[in-house]
Each structure stands twice: as structure tokens, then as C-alpha cells.
């Protein structure tokens, strides 16, 4: 390309960028398969603010990109423990309660959560659990926990989340250890457990673990409750079970990074999402547990009866940040996946 043409092209690009930035926009960085297009369209129609929705598949990915100086994001959607790290590191801006009147719609058990006791930085979006899905047409044995899933007879019939911390946590549960008691010793202790499991697993998939189950490539899965709820909605043969050895819940929240350029738009979006009729749209498409009690009143009895969305269990533990041990978990899993 000739230099003159190069300059011309660069000039055109700059011009376009300037024109674009004049329009109001909101840069949302959130989980994949989690924010319905309908909600983004509705928000744009009402406020004229364009939402740019970028996705990630794990909290670690979000942290990684944010720490690298992802100043472009106005709104992020970490889970509880990732929000905890971000608050500790001063990465989140305090919210303005005056701009969030709809926060009153949230259930009392979703206020003042351990990661943000004063509700200063975060607002719950959706919550869920991680549990076992059984294709009861194929698997006739009773499945109550991880020990029932990871049996040699189910070799190559299992899908699990491609999330190292999750897998390690399930193994800890089978040894009666809590999800947050991660230490080098405990990791050594569960090493043989995970090693055995990995030989039995057919697919690791965090984005859409339901696909392998729907396609008939596997009959058992350890997946996000929302994925399990969609499966149950498709076909009642997919049963959801919270493992008897232990289960944890996750609370995904909305938060505004300190470096956000459109903080007001971000507040508007949070408040919009907290409206019962908007929150219901999220439940319709991604049937996780909705913390918005006013929205729950709008759900059909069938939606509320979905055992994966609204399990009968009481309060479950949540993850806490484990700092550098995340790298040890990764090393352990890489070792074991390589068959060592």
C-alpha cells in the first residue's frame, strides 16, 4: 500500500471512530450465553444506548483481561469470588444507590452477601449451582453424587465443565473437604481421585455442556444448573441432582470497573435489568435461579417447578478467592490430562 493511501485509510478510520464515540454506548463484558439479545434491544429502544456485548467463559478470563488494562469495559459480570478479588484490588467503582431504586426487588437472601457485605460494589444478576445431569433413559442406576457418576462403567459417557477449579472442588467434596480448603496438601490428596475421573470423561466443555448430552454423545454430566434447566425443559429424561457429597452455589453479579467511561449508562443498565419484567426475560432464556423475587412472581408454575432452576436445598457455600493456588490447580490438571 502506498503511504498516501495508508494515511488516507488511517484518517478515515479515525474519523469513523470519532463519529462512533459521539453516540452513547455501553461496553458490557459478560459470560457467554447469559444476557438475552431481547434485553439489550429493549434497553437500546428505551434509552438509545447501544450495548456492546463481549463474552468470556471463565472468571479467570475476566480477571486476566481486566488486570491487563481492559479499561474499555463499563460493566462486568464476575461471580462472587472474582468480585471479591476485584473489590480487594480496588478494581471496582462504588455504586450510587440513588440510581438503583429497583434493587428493592431482590430477595433478602441475595443482599449483603459475603463477598460484598455492604452491597457497595455489586448487584446480583443470576445465581445457580453446579450439579449432575442424568439421562434417565439410558442410565437406570440411582445417581446421588460424584462417586456414582465417576464409575468405570460410565467411561466415555460423561461431560464435565472445562473448569479446573470446579473439577478440583468436586474431588475435594468426595473426600469431605470444603470447596475453599484448597492447599497444596489437599491438592495432593485428591490427585488420584481426579486422575481416575479424567480417564472416564469424554468431553470438557464450559460454554455449552448441554450439547454433548443433547447429541447423545454422553449420558451423564456435571454442569451449570442453567444448562441442566434447559435440558430438563427440552426433555424430562434429563434429571438434575445436587451431589450428596457436597455442592456449592455461585452468585453472578454486575459491577462497574473503576476505569469505566460510561458509569451513568452502566447504572441505567443495572437498574433496567432489575425490573421484574426484564428480569423475567432473562429467566425465560437462561433458566438459572433468579434472585429477583418480583420477577419470580411473573414466572410460570412450570418454570418455578424446574428442579435445576429452583432446587429445594437450603443455602450452599460459595467460592472464595484462592490467589496463586489457581496456578497450582492448573498445573495439577495439565499433569493429569496429559496422563501423568
Amino acid at each position, binding site marked *: 500500500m502506498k503511504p498516501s493511501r495508508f494515511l488516507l485509510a488511517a484518517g478515515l478510520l479515525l474519523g469513523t471512530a470519532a463519529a462512533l464515540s459521539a453516540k452513547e454506548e455501553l461496553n458490557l463484558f459478560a459470560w457467554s450465553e447469559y444476557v438475552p439479545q431481547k434485553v439489550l434491544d429493549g434497553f437500546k429502544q428505551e434509552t438509545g444506548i447501544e450495548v456492546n456485548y463481549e463474552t468470556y467463559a471463565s472468571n*479467570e478470563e475476566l480477571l486476566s483481561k481486566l488486570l491487563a488494562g481492559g479499561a474499555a469495559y463499563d460493566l462486568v459480570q464476575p461471580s462472587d469470588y472474582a468480585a471479591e478479588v476485584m473489590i480487594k484490588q480496588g478494581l471496582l467503582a462504588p455504586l450510587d444507590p440513588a440510581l438503583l431504586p429497583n434493587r428493592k426487588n431482590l430477595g433478602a437472601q441475595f443482599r449483603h452477601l459475603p463477598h460484598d457485605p455492604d452491597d457497595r460494589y455489586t448487584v446480583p444478576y443470576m445465581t445457580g449451582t453446579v450439579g449432575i445431569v442424568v439421562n434417565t433413559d439410558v442410565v437406570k442406576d440411582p445417581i446421588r453424587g460424584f462417586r456414582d457418576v465417576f464409575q468405570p462403567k460410565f467411561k*466415555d459417557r460423561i461431560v464435565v465443565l*472445562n473448569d479446573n477449579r470446579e473439577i478440583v472442588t468436586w474431588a475435594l467434596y468426595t473426600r469431605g473437604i470444603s470447596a475453599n480448603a484448597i492447599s497444596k496438601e489437599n491438592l495432593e490428596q485428591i490427585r488420584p481421585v481426579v486422575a481416575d475421573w479424567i480417564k472416564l470423561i*469424554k468431553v470438557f466443555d464450559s460454554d455449552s455442556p448441554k450439547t454433548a448430552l443433547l*447429541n447423545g454423545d454422553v449420558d451423564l454430566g456435571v454442569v451449570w444448573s442453567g444448562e441442566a434447566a434447559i435440558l430438563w425443559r427440552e426433555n424430562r429424561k434429563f434429571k438434575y441432582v445436587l451431589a450428596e457429597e457436597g455442592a456449592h452455589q455461585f452468585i453472578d453479579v454486575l459491577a462497574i470497573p473503576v476505569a469505566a467511561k460510561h458509569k451513568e449508562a452502566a447504572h441505567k443498565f443495572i437498574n433496567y435489568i432489575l425490573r421484574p419484567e426484564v428480569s423475567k426475560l432473562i429467566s425465560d432464556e437462561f433458566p438459572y435461579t433468579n434472585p429477583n423475587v418480583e420477577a419470580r412472581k411473573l414466572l410460570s408454575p412450570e418454570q418455578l417447578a424446574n428442579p435445576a432452576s429452583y432446587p429445594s436445598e437450603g443455602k450452599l457455600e460459595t467460592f472464595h478467592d484462592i490467589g496463586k493456588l*489457581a496456578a497450582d490447580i492448573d498445573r495439577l490438571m495439565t499433569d493429569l490430562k*496429559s496422563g501423568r
Partner: protein
Amino acid sequence: MSPTTLKTRPPALVAAPPEENRRRPRLLAWLLLAPMLLWLAAFVVIPTAILAVYSFCERDEVGRVVYRFTLENYRRVFEPVYLHIFWRSIVYAALTTAICVVVGYPVAYFIARAREAWRHKLLLLVMIPFWTSFLIRTYAWITILKQEGLLNGLLQSLPLGIGPLDLLYTPTAVVIGLVYAYLPFMILPIYGSAEKLENAVIEAAYDLGAGPVRAFSSVIVPLTMPGIAAGTLLVFVPAIGMFAITDLMGGAKVPMIGNVIQNQFLQARDWPFGAALGVVFMLMFAVTYWIVQRRGAQMG
């Protein structure tokens, strides 16, 4: 082109340009090169330098890079697990390259030897898949290979007695995906050198008493070697680092070096270690390139 005309070399530039003219083309050449140099600096040199610096750093509690010198990352790269993964990635890439040569060579040769009018149509067929996104094509393969997929449906409807094959999420699926993705990169360079091959040379081989096998192995293959070498580089190098296919079609079960590096930057938040893996990986490429180049030079 008639088969009897042999290509003549362009006459060598004998006269050196006059003294006063030497300067101007140089300046102009630099000007013309400037965008390319800028591009190289911005997207190759600087990122590589950052990677090299990170690879000697430490990480803090959350995963930020701390600028404190350490060799720990390189020590870790040479732990048996990672060497094993490097080795496995090389084996998969080598297998992919070998299959691509075996499958791609006849295709490329046939296209190059086809009539002019056909050549362009056939080449277009090779390139049509590029009109669709790579990820979409990979998802299409999932639809074909899955247990209740197209291939198994076809097999079971035929009276062959072949049960449903267990293909998706196996190493076979990974190799199928890799060969599919990179085959055109083998076909095109081989086509390039096969097209330049003179019939006269092949005829001369026959006249001198060579059989078809001999003519192929001592005349055709050496003359198309530059194409094979270029294709090998274009397939082997990216195939080692591929992580999307191993994730999607292999079920993320057996990590390749590309997956491990990706994990360091996202899941494990250990950028310095990821950078060290990347640097070693790049050195490996350089060595591969050097070997292939030397082979090519020797053959020539």
C-alpha cells in the same frame, strides 16, 4: 505453452547503475518499505519483545506481571509434563502434515496438469471453504461426526453391519479437523511448483529410460520440492499451536501446547509462564524453518 520451449533465464544485469543514480532509488525504496516496516515493528517486533520480557518476570497474587527477574518460568517449561505436551503437539502436527502431503500432492498435481480452463475452476473449489468462518466449519464437523450425526446415520442405513462409530471427541477427530483445516495450505504451494514443471523434463526422463516410479521419485518430486517444503511449513507450524480444534473436536481432553499456553493467559493467570512457553515455541518454529530451508536449498 508448447512442451518444447524451455524457459530461458532473464539476462543478468551487467552494467552497474551510474554513481549519482544510486541514492534516489534507495530513498524511494525505504519510503515504499515504511508501511511494511511499521507493520512489522508494531505487530511482530514489539509483541515479541514484550513476550520475551514477561517470560523472565514473576506474577503476583492475582495474576499481574511483576517485573522481578527470574528463570523459574523457563525451568518449568522443561519439566517432563510440558516436554511431553510439546512432543505430543509435534507428533499430531507431523501426522497432519504427512496426511496433507499424501492427500494434497495428487490433488495439486492433477490440478496443475489439467487444461488451463479447468485449472482455475478446480483451484476455486479448493478455496471455497475459506468463504465460511473456520469456527462454523469446525462446528459442521461436529454435526457430521457426533454419535447421532450424519456419518453414523449414513453408516447405519447401509447394509454393512458397521455400528455407530465413536469418532467425535477422540484423537481421530482432532486429526480429521486438523487435516481438513490445513489441506488447502498444502495444495496451493505444491500446485504452484507443479504448474511450473516442464513436460519436456519428464519426457526426457522417460527417454533416458526411467520408468514412471523413477521419473516421479527422481524428477517430479525433487522439482516440486520447494512447493512441498513451503506447504510443510504452512501446515506444520500452525498445526502445532492450534487449540480451537483440540477443544471443540477433541473435547479438550488431551492438552496440546496451544491449549496449555491459552490456559496460562486465561484460566491460570500465569502470564510469565505462558510467555516462556510462547518464546520456546517460537524458537522451535525458527529451528523447523531453518531445517526445512536447508533441506530445500540442498534439494535445489
